[in-house]
């Protein structure tokens, strides 16, 4: 369970997040939506400790994450697939996966086995350098790398970026099934509101750093005003 209350984050003089509150529960996908610059990525980075929090709280269960070092937050079981996926091109597929497993207590050999079963494509390409992978393959790798550590929380920053619609819908389906089968707390940041709302349980809409809506996904999906003004989904 991730609980964020009255979060304020500044980039110098710019208030990137103002008084943001959010709750994400295990086994559920919480979508964070909004236009570019709304603060969605900043929110995820704040959870992972990559940006300084001005005020407000972030809790993982009972534990406060504010002021904790990023690597320690990761070791608590918060898996974060960043914007652009963060696949390290100069390393091979297998090396990226190993890296994901290093900080956890997982048996690496077993972990690799599991991920290769889940994503056979990765298994085929395990010795290849990641710079040669396609967008969809990188997304798979980034997910697998986060999952190999058996996290409790999964933060996904625009996973559908640059992917073809067919691939996107496959991706969303697998996110949903992973979330449910492993009881993960998933926070899904997406520009592509339509596909996110299809699998999300709850949705939070950000605009210029503040929350303009926070409700069940179905409600948000059918709200005309939200659709038009914040989600780019015109009738």
């Amino acid at each position, binding site marked *: 369970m991730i609980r964020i209350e009255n979060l304020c984050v500044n980039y110098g003089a710019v208030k990137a997040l103002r008084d943001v509150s959010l709750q994400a529960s295990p086994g559920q996908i919480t979508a964070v939506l909004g236009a570019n610059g709304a603060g969605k990525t900043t929110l995820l980075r704040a959870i*992972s400790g*990559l940006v300084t929090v001005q005020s407000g709280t972030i809790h993982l269960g009972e534990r406060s994450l504010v002021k904790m*070092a*990023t*690597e320690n937050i*990761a*070791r608590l079981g918060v898996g*974060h697939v*960043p914007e652009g996926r*963060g696949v*390290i091109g*100069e*390393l091979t597929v297998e*090396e990226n996966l*190993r*890296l*994901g497993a*290093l*900080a*956890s207590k997982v048996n690496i050999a077993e972990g690799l086995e599991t991920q290769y079963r889940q994503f056979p494509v990765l298994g085929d390409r395990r010795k290849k350098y990641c710079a040669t992978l396609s967008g969809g393959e990188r997304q798979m790798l980034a997910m697998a*790398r986060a999952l190999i*550590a058996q996290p409790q929380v999964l933060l996904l920053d625009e996973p559908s970026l640059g992917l073809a619609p067919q691939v996107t819908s496959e991706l969303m389906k697998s996110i949903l099934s992973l979330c449910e089968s492993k009881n993960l707390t998933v926070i899904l940041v997406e520009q592509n509101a339509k596909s996110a709302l299809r699998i999300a349980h709850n949705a939070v809409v950000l605009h210029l750093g503040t929350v303009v809506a926070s409700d069940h996904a179905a409600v948000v999906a059918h709200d005309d005003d939200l659709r038009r003004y914040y989600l780019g989904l015109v009738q």
Partner: protein
Amino acid sequence: MANFLASPFMHNVLAGLAQGVLYSLLALSLVIIWQSTHVLNFAQGAMAMFATYIGMTEIDRGVGYWWCVIISVLVGMLFGGLAERVLIRPLYGKPEINPIVVMVGFLGVIEALAAAIWTSTTRNITPPFSQIYFHAGGQVILLSPFVIFQIVLAIVIMLSIAALFRFTKLGLQLRASALAPEVARLLGVRVSRMLTIGWMLSAGVGAVAAVIIASGTFGLFPTNMDGIFVAGFIAAAVGGLESPIGAITGGLLIGLSEQFILSYWSATLAPLGGIIILVVALMIRPQGIFTKNVERRV
């Protein structure tokens, strides 16, 4: 065979390789630091020299040669870790020029301090290997047990470092911390610790080079690593600061070119060998010969 090995050409090749291998070690140490923290440690040679002096004081107290080597390397590593924490860590985020200047200042301090403590007289550590060249059929081959030790040790160190980086968990974390520090942190890698370890490894490698130099005819004195540093830097630059293989190759090339200049032109001009190679290499490819095509300006 003996004739060939004893020929002037082979004399130069062997002497050049023996020296070049030391440049390669230093170049490698610079590349390790550069890859993890994007700082060029101008004090690298001086730090290694200082560590060797400390090892030498142990030999004075009657400890054996190998202990001296181990102590020097360990002290060097400690030095490297401290330098990263105390001098470089506060400078992250500041202009690129700051750590360069700080390390140059550090260089000055260490050399002056060494002269203050141990004077500028050349000292030697006597290795358990004879420095007398082999003879075969009445001719001299420019190899001695010590030279063989020098080359073998250097190669062993280089291979060990390569193996460390390629095959171990630590190596993977070190590489990730250098390539993509933020992503590495998101995966739970303690990047700041990796940076310190990178500096420690680098300093250890440098210390090995310094110990070898101190054991040979060049000897140990406060500024003995200056020339090696310049050559090592040039080797690293020629290879492109990103490439360990480039650094090693560069070192050998410079060693060879210096030797050939010494032999066919003039002894005093030998140090120019490296500089000539550097100028030529950087004019052809300003980003270094072995780097991939990365825009060097950004």
